[in-house]
């Protein structure tokens, strides 16, 4: 079976995911509202510049939306009894996971695109480096892969996975320089290095405000590295847990 053939089948999975899980009014609305509310709750009463706020909002929106449904797609499919049909088709497990990741990525990019547009048109934010566009796509893949990695334990209970997912996602939000600049974290700033969101937020700050902790190349390489790590780990773990799903 050739690689291109498998990629085409991945896109069938992506299309299916978009129709079944993402392109629904409540999902789209909550995709916009959830990060917006979190952000508003944080900025109200604080005197912060747009160049600090917008990169944080972008990072949070991308991270929260991309990793919102990915961790439970496999659980839903197992519960709805559609997953067995999917894995018995001539499509490799990596291609199924890749398809799920791309669906999640597209959903996240769609929401983030809105924030970009609002930031540019309404708030007059200027993007000074196009590395942000490439970085946003890589970051979306990275966060989505993390979501699929979180979904690997063989349970068919989506609410359990939601809880585990929140336990992983929310601490990452707080250590990634979105709400508190990394430079203010003192001796604890090394913790932020383990979060892929740190590098995306840093890249966004560089591309919008011109300030950064790492070089944009380092940010992009880190995001790329995390993407590969999460994707490969997700495939390996899903392969191991497959038998236990049925």
């Amino acid at each position, binding site marked *: *079976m050739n690689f291109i*053939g498998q990629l*085409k*089948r991945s*896109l*069938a*999975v992506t*299309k*299916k995911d978009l*129709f*079944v899980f993402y392109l629904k009014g409540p999902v789209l609305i909550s995709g916009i509202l959830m990060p917006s509310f979190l952000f508003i709750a944080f900025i109200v009463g604080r005197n912060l510049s747009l160049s600090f706020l917008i990169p944080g909002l972008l990072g949070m929106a991308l991270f929260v939306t991309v990793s919102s449904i990915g961790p439970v797609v496999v659980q839903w499919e197992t519960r*709805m*009894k*559609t997953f*067995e*049909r*999917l*894995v*018995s*088709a*001539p*499509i*490799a497990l990596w291609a199924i996971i890749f398809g799920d990741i791309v669906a999640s990525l597209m959903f996240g990019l769609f929401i983030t695109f809105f924030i970009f547009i609002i930031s540019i048109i309404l708030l007059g934010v200027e993007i000074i480096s196009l590395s942000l566009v490439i970085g946003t796509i890589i970051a979306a893949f990275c966060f989505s892969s993390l979501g699929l990695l979180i979904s690997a334990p063989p349970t068919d209970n989506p609410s359990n996975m939601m809880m585990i997912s929140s336990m992983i996602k929310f601490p990452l939000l707080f250590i990634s320089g979105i709400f508190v600049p990394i430079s203010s974290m003192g001796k604890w700033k090394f913790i932020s290095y383990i979060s892929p969101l740190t590098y995306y937020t840093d890249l966004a700050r560089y591309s919008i405000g011109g300030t950064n902790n790492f070089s944009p190349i380092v940010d992009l390489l880190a995001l790329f590295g995390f993407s590969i790590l999460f994707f490969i780990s997700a495939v390996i773990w899903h392969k191991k847990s*497959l*038998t236990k799903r*049925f």
Partner: protein
Amino acid sequence: MIKIYSIEVRDLTKKFNGFTAVDKISLVVKSGELFGLLGPNGAGKTTTIRMLTGIFKPTSGTALIGEYDIQKNPLEAKQLMGIVPEMANAYVDLSALRNLLLMGELYGIRKKERVKRAEYLLKLFGLYEKRNNKVKTFSKGMKQRLIVAMGLMNEPRLLFLDEPTAGLDVGSVRLIRKLIKEFNSKGITIILTTHNIEEANQLCDRVAIMNHGRIVAIDSPEKLKSTFQSTASIEVAFDKKVKAEELLFGDVVTETKKVGDKIRLYSKRTGEVIPMLVEYANSSGSKIISLNTLAPNLEDVFVKLTKE
């Protein structure tokens, strides 16, 4: 060139944390055969199917699907198969047509061909009028027809059907059975897992009976019945209540069983039992309302082989 065997299984074993679900089974299924896999719950049927369809990795043993080893070339082997897994579901938020098109895409069928094939199957399974309706609006019978149709999207050489008629209305059962026969007559090899012994008896060329992870018998339904001739029985009904144990007639009858208002007597010497029953009726002052001799059926064979 079409191979003589569609499936060749050698010493296939699956263990889950030390528990042996399938224990060194070996079998061959010829091309064009309709092969039944019977067994009580927990016998290992579904685990066997899941190994043959590449979902579970066997602990040991090999399985060839056509010319491909399911472990070494799983994708090529799966490309030959159509699969209707037990308890499978269609995507309820998609329409029937979109479900079929999705299957077509997963099997790498070109767009024009998959639309044509999907429409053909929708018509064949009586779902064409509802093709654009979401599956969540379908009845159980309609859903199951769609699920079987999804297994046929790739025009498989080999079709696995795991309990395809379980819990369905009579109309859907008849339609699915009729189509199983039709597809088999077109040369598709079919592996049918079922709890319904009469269904296996009616449809299958050969059946394998599984128990505790092993194949305990494998043959055509008729040969299996004749092998277990001792299970021939007589069913008798009296006008008065009669104790079943009074009809053992020494060792002539091996077993008696109450079946509704009748008593079933199992014996190797059924010819001797009939006059004994008449004599018993005369002496006890009761009348025989009905008396039927029953040839051994597949259910008897199944019960005998899977009894603890």
